[in-house]
């Protein structure tokens, strides 16, 4: 199946000279949840804004469902919904008026039943006749989501949708995203909450300084770049590593009371039994042991710092 969104050699250079995007290639499959991670100023919002028509590209190709986003803007944009990062609403409008406006703006015929369902799903129905200015920040965020969903988009962009929202709303939004995915909606989200990407996404992209460092299936990424760590809590403190353990990359921690062995997740636990046998042979007693899989956050931090260091060297 061809990708629903295809981005090729995309660059964006602002008038100030800032290169926000530098030759980005990315394909998004229909129906997937793709999380784009990156530090502030990495180019996440610029990428989304180019696809949505808010920012003009400097060069490169972007097609949505086979349509170039500029030459075929009408077909492409009809399929796109956007929830921007900033809380931007029509303060003086009522909830239902602004959501109905959004549906009409995107060329869809009036559908009160669909609007009602969207508002009910987002717990906004009771507040439909309230002016937006009277709503809380969380409720305004829901209104923005309702506006983006009003024309029943096939691709939904969520630009840091849970930034600054409370736990309840974040949970509701995760449920909403899952529900949309079940209906076949493709979701592309940017987030600072890496656990959110870990929880929600099928695939993950990491962008830094305008370059897409990787775009991988989440499980593959964790497998490929993930590390595991075995920690032994020692009965007696260890001041230095015995020569007999030099075959393993071990680190003494917690004032000598912990011995940590980090290994590649791909190697399974091949080295662990041998290490434990060796430790027993050497008479090193331990009270407890624990293993830990490195998180997406560890992978993200490693990749971004490696990219920064590489740039600093060149």
């Amino acid at each position, binding site marked *: 199946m061809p990708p629903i969104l295809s981005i090729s050699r995309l660059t964006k250079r602002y008038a100030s000279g800032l290169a926000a995007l530098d030759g980005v290639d990315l394909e998004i499959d229909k129906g997937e949840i793709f999380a784009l991670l990156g530090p502030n100023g990495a180019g996440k919002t610029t990428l989304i804004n180019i696809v*949505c*028509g*808010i920012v*003009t590209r400097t060069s490169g190709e972007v097609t949505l469902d086979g349509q170039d986003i500029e030459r075929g803007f009408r077909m492409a944009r009809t399929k796109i919904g956007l929830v921007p990062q900033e809380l931007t609403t029509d303060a003086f409008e009522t909830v239902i008026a602004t959501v109905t406006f959004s549906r009409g*703006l995107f060329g*869809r015929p009036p559908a009160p039943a669909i609007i009602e369902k969207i508002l009910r799903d987002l717990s906004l129905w009771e507040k439909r006749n309230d002016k937006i200015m009277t709503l809380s920040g969380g409720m305004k965020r829901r209104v923005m989501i309702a506006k983006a969903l009003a024309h029943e988009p096939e691709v939904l962009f969520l630009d840091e949708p849970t930034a600054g929202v409370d736990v309840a709303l974040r949970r509701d939004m995760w449920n909403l995203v899952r529900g949309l995915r079940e209906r076949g909606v493709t979701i592309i989200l940017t987030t600072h909450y890496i656990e959110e990407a870990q929880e929600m996404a099928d695939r993950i992209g990491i962008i830094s300084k305008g370059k897409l460092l990787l775009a991988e299936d989440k499980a593959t990424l964790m497998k490929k770049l993930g590390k595991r760590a075995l920690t032994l809590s020692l009965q007696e403190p260890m001041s230095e590593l015995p020569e007999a353990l030099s075959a393993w990359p071990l680190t003494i921690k917690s004032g000598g009371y912990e011995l940590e062995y980090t290994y590649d997740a791909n190697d399974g636990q091949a080295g662990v039994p041998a290490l434990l046998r060796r430790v027993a042979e050497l008479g090193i007693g331990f009270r407890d042991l624990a293993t830990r899989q490195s998180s997406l956050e560890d992978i993200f931090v490693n990749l971004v710092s490696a990219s920064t260091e590489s740039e600093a060297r060149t």
Partner: protein
Amino acid sequence: MSQGFNHRGVWAIYRFEMARFLRTLVQSVVTPVITTSLYFVVFGAAIGSRMSEVGGVSYGAFIVPGLMMLSLFTGSISNASFGIYFPKFTGTIYELLSAPISAVELVLGYVGAAATKSILVATIILVTAFCFVPVRIEHPVWMLGFLLLTALTFSLFGFVVGIWAKSFEQLQLIPMLVVTPLTFLGGAFYSIDMLPAAWRTVALFNPVVYLVSGFRWSFYGAADVDVGVSLGITLGLLIGLLVVVSWMFKTGYRLKQ
């Protein structure tokens, strides 16, 4: 949605903008009625008593087209400029830019609504005027034509100002510093034939003179300048503004980065 024309999008913008007008309906209707009545009291009673007729028309009736034009200019500009500036100010412009709506459709929605509002207010002024002075309309079709053309032209101008403006101060700058003075100097309340010869020549560089003159001709059959020239100037302004708007959208001027 039709592949060629997003009529629902245009209608959504039009309705959205008209809803703002309707929310303040009493203010929108009562204000021009009071203002027009005051003009008749001040200009009609105070000045008109010393200057009974201009070109065979009572002074009170003479100023009606000028009053309507003044209202059309200021109303059209403020409606359209605010209409497009406000989404820029609040940030909701993202939705307009990401919608499947072309520049022409966007302009139709905003300019159409702005022109409708200013025509409604101008009509209220005309109806109020009928209560005070003997207004007659000799060329009603031309009157409607000039009314529509002027409302569209100045709404388009307001749209340009709204895109150009970076602040509410700038939004007010052009109407206050340029349009209102030009209107007062453009024969809205007098015939430029009443000016000394030198000032009359200067006045002919003021485009408002042609708009007011053509509009007044449709009422009383007399004009300061040829009605064909008035029509040509109005159309010229409209076309010029269309070119500017088209350039703004093509380059994304102050709309897109």
